[in-house]
């Protein structure tokens, strides 16, 4: 059943047209369901459905890096809130950096994940205008990263593994953020990930934007959802600096190698979590379950390792990056 409130991306237009057609026929068939042409309509709907599914499969099998960028930013893509509420039981939200304020662009807390106590942290972009403003579109200020450090301290103290969900365009480039030491806050958060004596697993669920992302992603295992992106700067930012033209974002997305496949080849990430046909936004509950299973597997494989072994594994993982490329 197609959803009339669904947001279609520009390259999904042929699919949108087919789905609109299907819907039209369905509602027409529903209003005068009897008569001889009922069978024909049903056939036509079936034929169109197959065509739409085929179109969707073909489109999503060959997404360009720029199209993936659009999917990664899709407004209906599951966000931290969705993963947290479906995967974490007995969640207790922990707020504030204990020195300046609370930054809702990064959320976190304690809970249970398939019989394992965990500490979760993640960027939240928000779903509608009001929540997007509240979460500052997932662009954190120093307080967000300092809260993350505080929560990681807590995880270390009570020997709880850390799970992070990364989805941010980048750290917030604002006056107050600079004033309060945005750079230092990011650096300390990255450092804290690397010094943790407990397992840490990261999933890049949407946009892994630059330093604002790595601050929560210097983990033992880094997973990436199939159509998410991870990059040193946004394609638009890169285009405006190197091409001096934001409209070249497509080329920048291509050149920077920001897709999960590219990053797995470069050993920047460890594994890819396959998304449902047509992207995570078409079947959120399906992808949330896949993500849950992937995290569970990753945590299980890190179990029974000492604090030093975990630190050593993380150190080797990151120091190796780039060294075996030619």
């Amino acid at each position, binding site marked *: 059943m197609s959803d009339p409130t669904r947001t279609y991306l520009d390259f999904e237009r042929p699919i949108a047209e087919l789905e609109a057609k299907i819907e039209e026929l369905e509602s027409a068939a529903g209003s005068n369901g009897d008569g001889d042409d009922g069978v024909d309509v049903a056939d036509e709907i079936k034929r169109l459905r197959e065509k739409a599914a085929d179109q969707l499969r073909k489109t999503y099998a060959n997404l360009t890096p720029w199209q993936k960028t659009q999917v990664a930013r899709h407004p209906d893509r599951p966000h931290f809130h969705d993963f947290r509420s479906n995967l974490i039981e007995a969640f207790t939200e922990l707020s504030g950096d204990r020195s300046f304020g609370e930054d809702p662009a990064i959320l976190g807390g304690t809970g249970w994940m398939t019989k394992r106590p965990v500490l979760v942290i993640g960027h939240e972009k928000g779903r509608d205008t009001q929540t997007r403003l509240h979460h500052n579109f997932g662009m954190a200020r120093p307080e967000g990263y300092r809260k993350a450090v505080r929560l990681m301290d807590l995880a270390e103290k009570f020997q709880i593994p850390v799970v992070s969900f990364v989805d941010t365009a980048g*750290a*917030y*480039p*604002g*006056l107050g*953020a*600079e*004033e*309060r*030491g*945005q*750079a*230092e806050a*990011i*650096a*300390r958060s*990255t*450092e804290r*990930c*690397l*010094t943790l004596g407990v397992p840490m697993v990261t999933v890049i669920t949407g946009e892994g934007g*630059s*330093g604002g992302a*790595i*601050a929560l992603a*210097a983990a033992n295992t880094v997973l990436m959802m199939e159509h998410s992106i*991870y*990059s*040193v*700067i946004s394609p638009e930012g*890169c285009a405006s*600096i*190197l*091409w001096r033209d934001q409209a070249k974002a497509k*080329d*920048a997305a291509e*050149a*920077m*190698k*920001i897709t999960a496949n590219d*990053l797995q080849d*470069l050993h*920047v990430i460890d594994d890819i979590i396959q998304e449902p046909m047509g992207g995570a936004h078409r079947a959120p509950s399906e992808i949330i379950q896949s993500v849950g299973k992937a995290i569970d597997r990753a945590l299980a494989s890190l179990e029974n390792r000492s604090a030093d072994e975990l630190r050593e594994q993380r*150190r080797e993982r*990151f*120091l190796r*990056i*780039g060294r075996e*490329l*030619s």
Partner: protein
Amino acid sequence: MNWLDKLTPPGVKKIFSKRDTPENLWVKDPKSGEMVFHKDLENSLHVTPSGHHMRIGPVSRFAYTFDHGRFEEIEIPAVPKDPLRFRDDKKYTDRIKDARNKTGREDAIGIAVGKIGGIKSVAVVQDFSFMGGSMGMAVGEAFIKAAEEAVEREAPLICFAAAGGARMQEGALSLMQMPRTTLAIQMLKEAGLPYVVVLTDPTTGGVTASYAMLGDVHFAEPGALIGFAGPRVIEQTIREKLPEGFQRAEYLHEKGMVDAVVDRRELAEKLADVLSVLMKTKPPSRRKRLPAPEPVNS
């Protein structure tokens, strides 16, 4: 490129090149507009009479930092060449080639060992004139190498940061230098060795958000631009003009991000003082001060 450049290997070229010093005999002070004679500028460590700290490269920096200007450069590790096969309107490999010809350096960083106030030290200096000092794999590996050298020699590491940020042409591989360099600092920490950062003009982006903000001690040169986001990006985001002095060294000092803003002509002494305490050696014998700059005729 002239025929000599084509014939000589990079190492030899370095000897011929005088690129750390200005090519013109008279240099304009960007602050006062005054013309300064290059010899006077060199004598005052490239600080103009108005106090403006000009950008300098690794060789000058090493010479100004180590006792009696004596130091030994350490070769930076080789890294994979252009793994993304990146090109914008120009190939990345060509940009690298141009930067190497311009600076006589392999990449945007140099490492050297020498003594500071009698204390054996390792210094790592970013070169802003090499692709904006940008941090890619070469800078990351060199930083790690510098930390390893320091650990091996039981010496402190001094980092002179200067960078526009990460090197976009290396994509996520440049982003990975943020955790990688952070790990290098952990090595120093575990060895109980000091890590001192000197923030110079400009230090922004991923460099500030990693190794440039993780020092035991942070010094900054006067007037240096230091921040995470560049001022233009911030202005575009908040649609406001930024206040005077925003993201300058003095501002960061006021906001508690740097320990002291230090004039370049006093920096070596300042480093020697703090290192002597952190390394628990005896107080440094005062080395001969460099001559004060002669007043320039106007």
